[in-house]
């Protein structure tokens, strides 16, 4: 069976290639359906191929496709193990739904076909990333998803904002990639290869703690770029300039989780360096609360979700940093469900509001678009962490694990708890602002429920967001059992044992969630002026949040501007005048030397004679003296 795994990547890739050349000859929906079928197909294959793992204990295997760069032990090979299988399922599953949704969403766009080309290409790249059997191939996927995100963010290139955002996304990601690259150099120098099999088995014997830390931190830099962690998260909010399905697929469900995947995959390395673990966890927690606080005050419906995504990713980093890898992956999955749901919902709203994204101009939409409203409600509850919805289980396991690890991590646990509160608050705030209260629409907008093709994915995802969490409950740890073979060589952090402990911790987080939701609901169901007052009450804090701590300006002043200055200095103050000047200077010197000597040729024969005689004397004297 496994020798057909390449199909998983090949299908969407083929879709992309095919659409790239022929989509322009198709009428609108066809391209979309083809794309959806392509990725759906690989989902089907993945399901079949994953079956053997369900029984558990299966290690999976590597399928070599062809040699790529032998000198680096880097080949095009597919590693099919529980982890990659799970990731594949998430990517293809959620991906399919989003593809379908996009058919409706992108309706009427002149580059409809091109859009799906990119979507498929992205799917293929993401699958390359997760299925890679070595770091080099992972890096291929890693960069290609970056490319696709570049293309898709800048999909509406005729407006400057998306173009700029796309560039920003890619460049910031590149900074992360720099870390990853150097990490890979270090890995190669240490192990002499880049293939997982060559590395993980021998990590304990070959890695010193120092090297492990170095690699860990460098990988963290890479992951932080891809997964929008401090300090590199700034590109993600801007990325919302892209079409909403893109935000859902790439910037919520799949690509941004690549960082988490990388660290999880490299568990064997992190296992050897506590420093790296702590750093990862701390970065995660910090990002979680930081982003959450910003999300509190956003007005743009998608910005809220964007920062929420950053925050949730922070949770996942906290998890993997705590070495609660299962919890991390678990949250990755559930988050994929409900965040995709929320984004698609937001998309559906924007679609209905004719492109309006400011939540202050919405309200009361639940009547006109019930399906969206209630599915999004489910999403909100899920992310807020109310049992038995998906978010609760995963997030709670993370917090519990952090608590169980104790020490510094218990501090992080508290941070996580506060974040949970904030999350609940801003998500509820969003839902209420959009669907509750009286309409504040700008005139001329006639919101309407979206077509089936868009609502169906919402429903599907909603279902997943409800039941998805049951995959790994304190009672039945199916997921953990399923992933065991992947992590059997590393120490896993588990939540504390025993039901009472669980009840206590869960209770706390649920309490926080409820508090947040309650507060938000009570505040924002009132008429606008009231909650506006409420927000003003928090000034200047609220304003700071709304402006996202002005991080972009700071970066601009601290990094971009000086960099540009430096470049200009190099180009116009050094290269031309100094270096090139020296070159031309030499040339001019020779010429002017000619001009200096030229007067010797006075034209007076007697001068010539004098010179002649002088020369003669020199020669003679030199000869006689020389001998």
């Amino acid at each position, binding site marked *: 069976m496994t020798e057909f795994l390449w199909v998983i990547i090949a299908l969407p890739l083929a879709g992309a290639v095919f659409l790239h050349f022929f989509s322009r000859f198709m009428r609108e929906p066809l391209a979309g359906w083809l794309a959806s079928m392509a990725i759906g197909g690989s989902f089907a294959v993945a399901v079949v191929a994953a079956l053997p793992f369900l029984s558990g204990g299966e290690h999976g295997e590597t399928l070599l496709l062809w040699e*790529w760069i032998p*000198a*680096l032990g880097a080949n095009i090979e597919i590693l099919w193990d529980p982890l990659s299988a799970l990731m594949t399922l998430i990517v293809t599953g959620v991906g399919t739904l989003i593809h379908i949704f996009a058919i409706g969403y992108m309706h009427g766009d002149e580059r409809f076909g091109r859009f799906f080309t990119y979507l498929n290409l992205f799917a293929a790249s993401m699958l390359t990333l997760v299925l890679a059997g070595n770091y080099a191939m992972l890096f291929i996927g890693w960069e290609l998803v970056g490319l696709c995100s570049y293309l898709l963010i800048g999909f509406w*290139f005729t407006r400057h904002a998306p173009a700029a955002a796309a560039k920003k996304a890619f460049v910031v990601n590149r900074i992360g*990639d720099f870390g990853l690259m150097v990490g890979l*150099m270090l890995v190669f120098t240490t192990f002499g290869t880049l293939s997982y099999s060559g590395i993980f088995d021998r990590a304990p014997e070959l890695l010193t703690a120092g090297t492990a830390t170095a690699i860990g931190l460098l990988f963290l830099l890479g992951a932080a770029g891809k997964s929008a962690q401090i300090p590199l998260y700034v590109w993600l909010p801007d990325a919302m300039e892209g079409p909403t399905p893109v935000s859902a697929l790439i910037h919520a469900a799949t690509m941004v989780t690549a960082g988490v995947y990388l660290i999880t995959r490299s568990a064997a390395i992190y296992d050897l360096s506590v420093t790296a673990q702590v750093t990862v966890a701390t970065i995660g927690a910090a990002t979680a609360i930081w982003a959450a606080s910003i999300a509190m005050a956003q007005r743009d419906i998608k910005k809220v979700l964007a920062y929420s995504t950053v925050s949730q990713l922070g949770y996942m980093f906290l998890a993997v940093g705590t070495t609660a890898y299962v919890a991390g992956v678990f949250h990755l999955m559930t988050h994929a469900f409900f965040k995709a749901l929320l984004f698609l919902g937001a998309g559906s709203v924007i679609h209905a509001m004719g492109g309006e994204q400011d939540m202050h101009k919405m309200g009361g939409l639940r009547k006109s678009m019930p399906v969206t409203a209630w599915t999004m409600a489910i999403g909100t509850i899920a992310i807020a962490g109310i049992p038995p919805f998906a978010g609760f289980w995963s997030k709670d396991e993370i917090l519990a694990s952090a608590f169980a690890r104790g020490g510094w991590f218990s501090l992080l646990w508290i941070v996580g708890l506060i974040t949970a509160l904030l999350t609940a608050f801003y998500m509820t705030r969003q839902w209420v602002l959009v669907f509750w209260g009286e309409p504040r629409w700008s005139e001329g907008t006639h919101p309407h429920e979206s077509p089936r093709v868009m609502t169906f994915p919402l429903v599907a995802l909603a279902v997943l967001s409800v039941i998805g969490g049951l995959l790994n409950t304190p009672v039945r740890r199916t997921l953990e059992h399923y992933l065991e073979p992947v992590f059997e060589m590393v120490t896993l952090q588990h939540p504390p044992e025993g039901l009472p402990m669980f009840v206590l911790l869960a209770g706390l987080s649920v309490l926080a969630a409820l508090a947040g939701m309650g507060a938000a609901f009570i505040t924002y169901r009132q008429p606008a002026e009231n909650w506006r007052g409420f927000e003003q009450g928090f000034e200047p804090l609220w304003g700071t949040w709304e402006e996202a701590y002005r991080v972009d300006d700071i970066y601009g002043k601290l990094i971009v501007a000086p960099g540009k200055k430096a470049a200009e200095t190099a*180009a116009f103050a050094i290269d031309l005048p100094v270096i090139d000047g020296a070159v031309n200077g030499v040339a001019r010197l020779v010429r002017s030397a000619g001009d200096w000597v030229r007067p010797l040729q006075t034209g007076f024969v007697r001068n010539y004679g004098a010179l002649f005689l002088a020369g003669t004397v020199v020669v003679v004297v030199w000869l006689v003296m020389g001998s």
Partner: protein
Amino acid sequence: MLTALVLVPVVGALVVALTPRRRTELHLPLGVAVSVLPLALAIYLFTVFEPVAAYQFTEQYVWYEPWGITWTLGVDGISLPMVLLTTILVPISLAASTAITTRTKEFVVYTLLLEAGMIGVFLALDLFLFFVFFEAILIPMYFIIGIWGSERRVYAAMKFFIYTAFGSALMLAGIIALAITHAQEFGQISFQLADLMQLDLGVGAERWLFAAFALAFAIKVPVFPLHTWLPDAHTEAPTAGSILLAGVMLKLGTYGLLRFNLSLFPEVSVDAVWIMGTLAVIGIVYGAAVAIVQPDLKRLVAYSSVSHLGFIVLGTFALTSGGLQGAVIQNVNHGLTTGALFLLVGMIYDRRHTKQISEFGGLQKVMPLYAGFFLFMIFASIGLPGLNGFVGEFLVLIGSYTSVPALAVVAATGVILAAVYFLWAYERVFTGLPEKEENLALSDLSAREISLLAPMAALVLVLGLYPNILLDKIAPSTEAVLDHIEASTGYVVPEPGRLGDVFVAGGD
């Protein structure tokens, strides 16, 4: 076989030269047709080439016996890719030169002679012969820049010629010194690379000779700070000139460093690792930084070449398998991508007669195909995995990290900067809505132009996904170079991986 490879273009040039001057419409097609023959030969050569270290298809004819100069040609894994690259780029650049309407005959003749010279440089195994080709190609290129270039063409051509000639002049002295040393040590004079590699020169002499050779090649590459002729030459040259300059001529430098400096002066090469490496890295970062703020698209690409060639030099002097393999294949990659970029810039220049970035904007709207190709090549050049650029850079970086970690890390920042300058340029040129009305009227790529770009794009993709077609031919030869260095010095190539056994050296 190899001699034919060198002579076919010459004969072709003569044929073209005999066609009537008035029949301008004949010359270009004829030239393309002629230049396809070497390509065919090269491809055949590629197919029959055995992936082993030794020189193959070697031919030797005595040229003038008393001076020990011979016509010795041979091809190995290092020169083979370069020959292929040359033979591929020449037909393309000829076919791309429809914008050249005056004195087309001369143009074709010069280009073909240029091709012969370049192939000769890569095949020559006799230093005298090598120098003859190395110097001879200056002339046609000088004419190409000087006659068909843009405004400051004469200045650029002069600068190009004198600057590079200066470098090679000292190398000539070095070559003479080597040959005469050989005469003193072994009794008869010889310019054979193989013979000269047997010499043991004193460290002092070796230093000077290394310097002489390195200077010549460093100017050609160009290595910072000897690079300033390049932006001028590239910017002023006609499209074909730029393609061949960037695609092939710069490689003469990197090739020379690899083929001659490493083989002839192993001792000093080992000592020079840090100097050359540092210069290379400075070049990488500096070139990129300067490229960011260039207002002229062609100049930007030119400086990007400075940056990219830094990687090649770094890889060469990393003295590791990865580094050398990376250097060699990066030669090809850079030739393809940068060549294609110059081709693209040339296409837009033919339409708008300007290269100023500020003149454009929103082109993606009016010429999507063009934009597509441009973006593709940009990403290839940025080093996007799956495209060729990545393979070379990655090999170089990882290879050099094992021997000169610090340099490798700094060099890696070049990868970021590349994204910055190219994507920023792309943003300014292609995105947004086209404001200038002269941009609105632009026509998208014609079938001919596509037929030129498509093969390059295909190669870029193939080399990115399956570089092995070259690597397994390159690896043995690079390993041989390393073995020679190890054999003749105390230097030990750092083996990555504390368990050498897992390390899979390419090829052997």
